[in-house]
């Protein structure tokens, strides 16, 4: 880094270089047709280096700077203002791997990978604006490899100070970048490992400075470290700060690792570490100067504890085994091989451990009787142990011994072992006999002795140092012993047991001091002692006379003859005690307690009083108050004299001490004076003084605490107050008065009611009193009037304050301004009301709107409600409909697309689209199925319901039954078609006779001219017929158009009347064709246009009669089909020529005539159809075909049976 040329210098030199290059280029361009842009200023006032450069001598410099530029460690790259390369040095071409020619004229981003191109362009723009001059950028070498560069850029200016281009110094930092990346990855890996290992891991940094204690701080710790070391949040902290008692060893170990770099593995633990054990591995990391040590450690406490316990057990067992006084053999169960024997075994059996090992008891010939061994094994198998089996064994030398054998089984993981215990009872057995003889002798002697001592009036004890062997009843009673056994203990113990002590000092007698002990030593003693009777607990004064018992010059025991002298001793003691008590009373008095005589000289004092004068209780006696403390005398002299003279006691006279207290502070006293008789009719004064300094001080403190309370209470934002146990308020804080503008006089007790709102005060008072009575916490919310006469809302609370006995002594209350909160609540309430109102509005709307409205919830399009009208169409109640999700809609209501054939899918339904997609659906036709199965076309409009956030909360669909609309539409279409046909027909059929008239008029003229009489007649006939036909057509058209318009009112007419009238009108043709008319219909009433109904039947009858063909017995029947459940169908049936099924379509057409020769214009059936239509009926016909008769059927609105 340091040996590089500084960028600024280089740039200035480069500028010069570029200048010269420009000149060179200019020359080159002049010779070659070069496309490079040429800079044309070669002298600039701005660049003073350039100024120094002589224009006419560029050669030397040229060479010099060229070599600088070309040998520079950095790449030099120059762009013009369009960011086209105008210069690169050799180093640049090396870095990029491109040739100079390949780079010149190119943009830098031609050498960038796609991801860095945008940044490259931005950087170039920033350059031109002078915003950056140093940055890192990513390029791509010619070989495709990545190239990280560090770029130092500066602007080039021309003479006018205009930016000419950008000069870049390029350093290849790819390697560094890649290393950084690798480093980063490696660090991440380390971090990952660091955090995931279970062992505690930390990195510490040692501080090794002369004169300072060794210490280290934690650079890094992992989670396991914190858990195991119990050092929380250790990172960055110094060890000595956290654990000042941390053992020095640690610091030393880590120091050594830091200094030497030698890793250390060790285990540590013990009490200093809360009895935890760690295995640690410490090793140096980083450079030695860093003095960093990494420590990997593991908590071994549990394992350690187990190991320890095991080792302890083994040792215990081994020690017990070794030192056992019984002979022990440890052998294997399987083959009886001896594994271990102890010393006692060696002693008992003569076999050394070496000799016994590896052999069995059979090998050692241990059992005298082999059956004993078998028995032992049998018991062992049965009981898993052998207990005290008496057998005879032989030692190494064949000596027989009686022993007691016990065997225990030991099952370990490694082996099943047998521990055999041999207890030698040979000697014991022998001595047992001897003892028995001696005992008998002893018993006899004892009986004799007992008789002697029992007869003595004194207490008699006989015994040795192991205890008393004989005593009489008096002796037992004296000490309160229950029996002789109580006394059969070592003499020293007996001394303690009966609390034997010296009468004056009360110190217990040492064992050696006990009279009995001394007698056992040969001394004869008579002394007085005190003992405590074990039964009564009373002290017994004893005069003890003890003497040794000497047999054959040897002391074999001692005898004591003791007298009870308690009564005399007690009398002596009582007097002494009384005196001592009084003195003790004085000495131990916690208060000042003085007794002075008539001259105010001290007779007795407490311990403290003398200390004021530098005296002791002993030395103050006889000294007088006036001498010791004239001040005190001045203060109390008169009082004391008064007491002596009058005998009146002065109690609790408080006054300040004339002398400061012992600690130099002023002391406060409460003093009493009383007269005391001193005998011989003399009087003294007793003085009792109690220091009350502490009480005084706490009183002071209390007032201070109250002051603090008031200061706090006056400054909080709430109101605070206190009431007595009855709720009468005796204190308010300052805020209360500030707000209310009242005074304490106005407010005290129940004065607060004055500034409460009249609407609330009654309730507040009642609740407050209730709380006070019950001693419960009180809480209420109410308005309080401020000094501005405005009420604000307050949340008020009161809590009882109780004393140690849990009695309520006061109430403490606060009022918190919650006006804002209250307002917010009111707003919320209003909003809720509004919502409720909205809901009611919706419900009302849904109840009465004559339209289907369905509301669903997002996202499942669950139906929430359907308007009443909608329910009527769907014939489902609210409950049945509510909650049905989208997938069930199509099947539930049989929803089809508008074609009525394709079942709808849930997703395409308008409600689903509105609810799920937020789509607004307008005027779509769908079809739903009623419960009775009929299809209802509906017109739908749907929209999403948005919540306040603009999210879709649901959807609503409005839908209308458009069956009527559809029908009308259909009818309209039919009517239109009919009209079109009508107009067409009219134009054709009316034109036809016109043509005829026209033609024959011309012929007629010709025929008149030619005087052709026959032809003339013929022509006139044609004309006449055509004119008639035309007239008739026009009349009938007029008639047809009138039907349904310009009518009278509809009335109820009987069918009979209608038929009668119709028959009358066609009577001519009926007669002419001999047609018989039969009415089979029952009496009916028809509601309709009377004249039209007649016309209807007239046309049908006329038609029937007209087309009878060659029927010999023409018959027309008028009948009705009156199926009860269906509408009544009327029919007119003939047995005439019938209608060819091929012509059915044309039958009811206007001016259609199947037979051109037939009479009439062909309007009849068109008229019939029209009449039926204006009566909302239908008409159709059946015919078996030509010659087989025809039946016209039709319905009309409101036909009913007359007799019903």
């Amino acid at each position, binding site marked *: 880094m340091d040996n590089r040329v500084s960028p600024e210098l280089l740039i200035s030199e480069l500028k010069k270089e570029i200048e010269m290059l420009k000149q060179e280029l200019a020359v080159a361009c002049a010779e070659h047709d070069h496309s490079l842009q040429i800079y044309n200023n070669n002298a600039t006032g701005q660049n003073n280096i350039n100024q120094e450069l002589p224009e006419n001598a560029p050669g030397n410099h040229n060479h010099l700077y060229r070599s600088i530029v070309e040998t520079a460690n950095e790449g030099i790259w120059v762009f013009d203002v369009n960011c086209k390369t105008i210069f690169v040095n050799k180093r640049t071409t090396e870095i990029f791997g491109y040739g100079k020619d390949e780079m010149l004229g190119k943009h830098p981003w031609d050498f960038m990978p796609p991801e860095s191109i945008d940044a490259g362009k931005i950087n170039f723009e920033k350059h031109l604006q002078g915003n950056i001059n140093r940055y890192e950028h990513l390029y791509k070498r010619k070989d495709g490899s990545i190239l990280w560069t560090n770029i130092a850029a500066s602007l080039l200016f021309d003479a006018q100070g205009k930016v000419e281009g950008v000069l870049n110094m390029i350093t290849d930092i790819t390697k560094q970048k890649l290393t950084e990346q690798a480093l980063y990855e490696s660090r991440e890996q380390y971090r990952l490992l660091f955090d995931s290992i279970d062992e505690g891991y930390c990195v510490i940094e040692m501080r090794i400075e002369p004169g300072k204690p060794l210490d280290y701080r934690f650079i890094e710790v992992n989670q396991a470290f914190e858990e195991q070391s119990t050092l929380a949040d250790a990172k960055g902290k110094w060890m000595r700060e956290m654990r000042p008692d941390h053992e020095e060893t640690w610091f030393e170990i880590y120091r050594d690792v830091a200094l030497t770099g030698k890793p250390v593995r060790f285990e540590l633990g013990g009490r200093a570490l809360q009895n935890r054990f760690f295995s640690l591995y410490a090793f140096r990391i980083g450079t030695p100067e860093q003095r960093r040590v990494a420590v990997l450690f593991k908590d071994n406490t549990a394992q350690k504890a187990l190991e320890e316990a095991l080792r302890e057990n083994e040792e215990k067992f081994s020690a017990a085994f070794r030192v056992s006084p019984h002979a022990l053999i440890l052998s294997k169960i399987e083959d009886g091989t001896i594994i271990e024997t102890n010393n006692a075994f060696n002693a008992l059996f003569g076999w050394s451990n070496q000799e016994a090992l590896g052999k069995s008891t059979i090998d050692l010939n241990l059992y005298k009787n082999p059956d004993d061994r078998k028995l032992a094994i049998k018991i062992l198998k049965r009981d898993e142990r052998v207990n005290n089996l008496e057998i005879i064994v032989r030692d190494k030398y064949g000596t027989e011994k009686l022993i007691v054998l016990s065997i225990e089984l030991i099952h370990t993981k490694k082996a099943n072992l047998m521990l055999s215990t041999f207890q030698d009872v040979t000697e014991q057995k022998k001595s047992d006999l001897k003892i028995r003889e001696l005992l008998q002798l002893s018993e006899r002697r004892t009986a004799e002795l007992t008789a002697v001592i029992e007869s003595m009036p004194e207490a008699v004890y006989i015994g040795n140092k192991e205890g008393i062997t004989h005593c009489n009843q008096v002796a037992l009673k004296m000490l309160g012993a229950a029996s002789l056994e109580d006394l059969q203990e070592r003499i020293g113990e007996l001394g303690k047991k009966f609390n034997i002590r010296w009468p004056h000092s009360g110190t217990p007698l040492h064992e050696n001091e006990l009279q009995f002990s001394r007698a056992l030593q040969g001394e004869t003693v008579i002394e007085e002692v005190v003992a405590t009777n074990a039964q009564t607990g009373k002290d017994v004064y004893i005069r003890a006379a003890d003497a040794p018992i000497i047999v054959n010059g040897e002391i074999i025991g001692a005898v004591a003859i003791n007298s009870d002298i308690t009564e005399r001793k007690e009398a002596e003691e009582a007097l002494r005690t009384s005196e001592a008590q009084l003195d003790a009373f004085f000495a131990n008095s916690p208060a000042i307690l003085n007794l002075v005589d008539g001259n105010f000289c001290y007779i007795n004092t407490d311990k403290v009083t003398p200390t004021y004068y530098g005296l002791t209780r002993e030395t103050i006696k006889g000294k007088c108050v006036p001498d010791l403390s004239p001040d005190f005398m001045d203060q109390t002299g008169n009082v004391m004299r008064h007491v002596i003279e009058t005998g009146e006691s002065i109690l609790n006279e408080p006054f300040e001490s004339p002398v400061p207290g012992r600690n130099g502070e002023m002391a406060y006293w409460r003093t009493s004076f009383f007269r005391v008789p001193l005998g011989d009719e003399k009087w003294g004064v007793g003085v009792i003084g109690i220091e009350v300094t502490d009480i005084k001080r706490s009183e002071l403190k209390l007032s201070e605490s109250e002051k603090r309370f008031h200061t706090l209470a006056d400054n909080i934002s709430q109101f605070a107050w206190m009431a007595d146990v009855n709720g009468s308020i005796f204190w308010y804080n300052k805020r209360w008065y500030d707000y209310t503008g009242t005074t304490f006089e106005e407010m005290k007790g129940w004065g607060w009611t004055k500034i409460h709102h009249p609407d609330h005060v009654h309730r507040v008072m009642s609740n407050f009193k209730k709380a006070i009575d019950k001693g419960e916490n009180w809480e209420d919310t109410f308005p309080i009037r401020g000094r501005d006469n405005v009420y604000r809302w307050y949340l008020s609370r009161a809590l009882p304050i109780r004393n140690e006995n849990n009695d309520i002594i006061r109430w403490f209350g606060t009022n918190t301004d919650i006006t804002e909160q209250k307002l917010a609540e009111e707003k919320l309430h209003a909003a809720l009301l509004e919502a409720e109102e909205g809901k009611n509005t919706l419900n009302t709307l849904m109840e009465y709107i004559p339209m289907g409205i369905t509301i669903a919830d997002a996202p499942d399009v669950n139906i929430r409600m359907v308007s009443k009208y909608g329910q009527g169409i769907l014939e489902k109640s609210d409950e049945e409909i509510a909650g049905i999700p989208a997938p069930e809609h199509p099947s539930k209501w049989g929803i089809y697309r508008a074609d009525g054939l394709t079942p709808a899918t849930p997703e395409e339904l308008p409600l689903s689209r509105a609810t799920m997609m937020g789509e607004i659906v307008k005027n779509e036709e769908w079809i739903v199925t009623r419960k009775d199965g009929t299809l209802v076309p509906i017109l739908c409009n749907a929209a999403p319901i948005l919540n306040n956030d603009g999210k879709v909360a649901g959807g609503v669909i409005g839908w209308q039954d458009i069956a009527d609309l559809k029908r009308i539409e259909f009818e309209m279409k039919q009517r239109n078609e009919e009209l079109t046909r009508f107009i067409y*027909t009219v134009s*054709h059929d009316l034109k*036809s006779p016109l043509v005829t008239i*026209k033609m024959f008029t011309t*012929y007629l003229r010709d025929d008149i001219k030619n005087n052709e009489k026959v032809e003339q007649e013929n022509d006139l006939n044609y004309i006449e017929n*055509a004119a008639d036909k035309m007239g008739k057509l026009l009349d009938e058209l007029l008639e047809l158009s009138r039907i349904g318009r310009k009518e009278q009112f509809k009335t109820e007419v009987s069918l009979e009347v209608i038929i009668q009238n119709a028959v009358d009108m066609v009577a001519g043709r009926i007669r002419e064709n001999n047609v018989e008319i039969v009415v089979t219909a029952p009496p009916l009433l028809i509601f309709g246009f009377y004249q039209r109904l007649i016309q209807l039947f007239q046309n049908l009858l006329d038609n029937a009669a007209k087309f009878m063909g060659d029927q010999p017995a023409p018959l027309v029947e008028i009948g009705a089909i009156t199926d009860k459940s269906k509408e009544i169908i009327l029919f007119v049936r003939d047995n005439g020529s019938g209608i060819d099924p091929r012509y059915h379509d044309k039958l009811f057409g206007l001016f259609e005539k*199947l037979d051109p020769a037939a009479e009439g214009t062909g309007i009849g059936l068109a008229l019939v159809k029209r009449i039926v239509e204006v009566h909302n009926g239908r008409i159709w016909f059946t015919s078996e075909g030509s010659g087989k008769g025809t039946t016209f059927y039709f319905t009309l609105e409101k036909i009913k049976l007359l007799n019903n």
Partner: protein
Amino acid sequence: METRELSLILYVEDDPAHAAFTMRFFKKSYIDNNIIHLPDGQQALDYLFYQGNYSDKEIAPRPQLILLDLRLPKVDGLEVLKRIKSDEILRCIPTVILTTSEAEIDRAKAYHNYVNSYLIKPLDITKFSNMIESFGLYWLNWNKYAGGDDTT
């Protein structure tokens, strides 16, 4: 011009008056001798398809030209046209509509069903006369038919 004797025209017209003066015009143009006049659509179909009264082929020779009114009883002219043009053999016979209807829909339907020509009856007798004359001249003189002399 000798072919004229061979020409047979099938003329379907329900209105007897119209039939009468039309025949007069034919006569005037010397084409009246080979005209078969039928009064409705059904009879026309019977004739053309050898059915009903015309099941005997001898009495229903094939026409060279069919002249058809649109508004006919029983079977409409348009229906007759459709049937003719649906038939393999009959569709080759030029069929001309002669009607009073000027309605566009009629013309469209006729052409849609492959009518060969559509004529409207003029109200003026001279025009009517000229038209029939031209008609005869064109269809019976100038126009050449598909088949040879096979009129069966």
